[in-house]
């Protein structure tokens, strides 16, 4: 078994576990999930939001590379596009299995209801997939094609619209007070960039590691600064939102915020969202001044933390029973506990994402051309230490 094959054994095993979950979901339908009539959206939706938002974040950083002219970011352009594709497709897989039949996603486009956020999600993310495929294709066969600039510009608008709409799906659910308002579209945009940067750094670091080479410090610093900036914004937004909700006149809002801070969601909120997603990585980034190893550790923690954020906000919106008849005393919280099927599907999507990205690294040229980026061609040719293979 070659070194590469050994590296790929773990994600391949995860895909097999995911397939077992998919088979169980297809056979047993909703019974295979921990969701209920009171909490209809669970971990699979959180997983989908995680993958789709991270794909958008990685794509936005790739676009930043295209338009900013900053060498460190330009070097990430192709890698960002391929990584986005490797995150988006497993994300689609998750939502397809959650729907019970992946073909249902196509039906969304054939029978549109324009007032539905989910319809717009299907539409915008389909365009995103198409634009990504075009960008990835041209990056390999004809990177200097003059139409590519226009495609990239379109893609930037599409990415921002798609990820904000993802937040709007929850904001427009109407009756779930915790999700209402302008907060989530902006919050998802910020945390999408955060998780996209973390995924990009993790991928770049590991692919370099495999060949025993160091990742270019300028790239580490650029991604590290993006992550640190997004953490500060996300932390401020979270603190403000929770503070406002804890003081809110509406009881369900106060109860939801309390569920996060000191209720059944508290352990995941403090350990996952705040600890792994914000405090620890920020400390690692700032104390180590964006050194590669520490920034990589911060990126992995951020990925865990952002997943906790997705799971928290999906659960928080539904956990407080709705008041239908005034005066009826409900249980304090709805209960949702994810099943092995849901965890298996998430593991499968993660494994598929890693495999797809590794395949792209192996098969395609993801490093920027030396002339495009750094003045010193030496440092670019081995940006992440990947062997240069052409298609």
């Amino acid at each position, binding site marked *: 078994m070659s070194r590469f094959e050994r590296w790929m054994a773990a994600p391949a095993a995860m895909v097999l576990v995911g397939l077992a979950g998919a088979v169980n979901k297809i056979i047993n*339908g*909703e019974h295979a999930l921990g*969701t209920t*009539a*009171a909490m*209809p*959206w669970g971990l699979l939706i959180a997983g989908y939001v995680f993958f789709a938002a991270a794909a958008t974040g990685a794509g936005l950083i790739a676009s930043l590379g295209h338009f900013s002219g900053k060498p460190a970011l330009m070097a990430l352009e192709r890698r960002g596009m391929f990584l986005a594709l490797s995150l988006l497709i497993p994300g689609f897989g998750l939502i397809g299995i959650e*729907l*019970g*039949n992946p073909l*249902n*996603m196509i*039906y*969304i486009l054939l*029978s*549109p*209801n324009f*007032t*539905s*956020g*989910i*319809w717009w999600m*299907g539409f915008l993310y389909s365009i995103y997939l198409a634009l990504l495929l075009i960008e990835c294709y041209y990056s390999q066969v004809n990177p200097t094609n003059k139409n590519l600039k226009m495609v990239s510009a379109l893609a930037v608008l599409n990415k921002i619209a798609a990820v904000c709409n993802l937040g709007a*799906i929850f904001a*427009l*659910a*109407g*009756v*779930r007070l915790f999700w209402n308002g302008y907060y989530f579209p902006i919050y998802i945009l910020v945390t999408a960039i955060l998780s996209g940067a973390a995924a990009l750094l993790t991928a770049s670091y590991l692919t370099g590691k495999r060949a025993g080479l160091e990742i270019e410090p300028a790239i580490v610093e650029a991604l590290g600064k993006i992550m640190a900036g997004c953490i500060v914004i996300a932390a401020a937004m979270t603190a403000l939102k929770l503070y406002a909700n804890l003081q809110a006149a509406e009881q369900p809002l106060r109860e939801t915020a309390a569920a996060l801070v000191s209720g059944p969601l508290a352990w995941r909120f403090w350990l996952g969202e705040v600890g792994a997603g914000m405090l620890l990585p920020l400390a690692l980034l700032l104390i180590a001044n964006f050194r590669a190893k520490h920034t990589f550790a911060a990126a992995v923690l951020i990925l865990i933390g952002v997943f906790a954020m997705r799971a928290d906000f999906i659960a928080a*919106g*539904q956990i407080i*029973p*709705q*008041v*239908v*008849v005034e*005066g*009826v*005393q409900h249980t304090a919280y709805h209960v949702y506990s994810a099943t092995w099927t849901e965890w298996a599907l998430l593991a499968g999507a993660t494994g598929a994402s890693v495999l797809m990205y590794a395949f792209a690294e192996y098969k395609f040229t993801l490093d920027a051309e030396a002339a495009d980026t750094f003045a010193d061609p030496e440092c670019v040719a081995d940006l992440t230490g990947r062997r240069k293979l052409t298609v």
Partner: protein
Amino acid sequence: MAHYAMLIDASRCTGCAACRIACQMQWQLPPEVFFNRLEFREQGTYPNVRQDIVPVQCMHCDNPPCLKVCPTGATYKRADGMVLIDHGKCIGCKYCMVACPYDVRQMNERGVPEKCRFCAGHVETGGQPPCVATCMNDVRIFGDLDDPNSEISKELKRRDVFQLAAHKGTKPRVFYVKSKK
């Protein structure tokens, strides 16, 4: 054109759940799927306490949030006021379940978030929904608001009524008689 609605006098309900079972029989639902439920409310302080039982089902809202969020238009509203589901169009995204302020949608065996159908197909031919017909205490009255001689039209004029969670702007078509107690 008929305009169907329902009036519920919860003060008459004894909590026997015959309405729920009759509905399950009518639509051949499995035991865990039900289109109407009873909510129990304690009132007063010991020793002067009582329990209200309030039947809850799809309100066939005139401004239904479930319809707005449905990505494929599987949820639709008929001209006679019924909010129904086209099973062929439903993709099972469960957005309607999240958006319904009354928590009345239930996933059926085929992955469609189902709910009360106001017995469409049965009432047009003069039949009564089984939840209405089976109730020993006449808790529910179902009928056509456009017919001034229908029982529901007369009762709605005569009695003081309210709608559940009306502040959410859903404009429900299920009315409740205000309790005198």
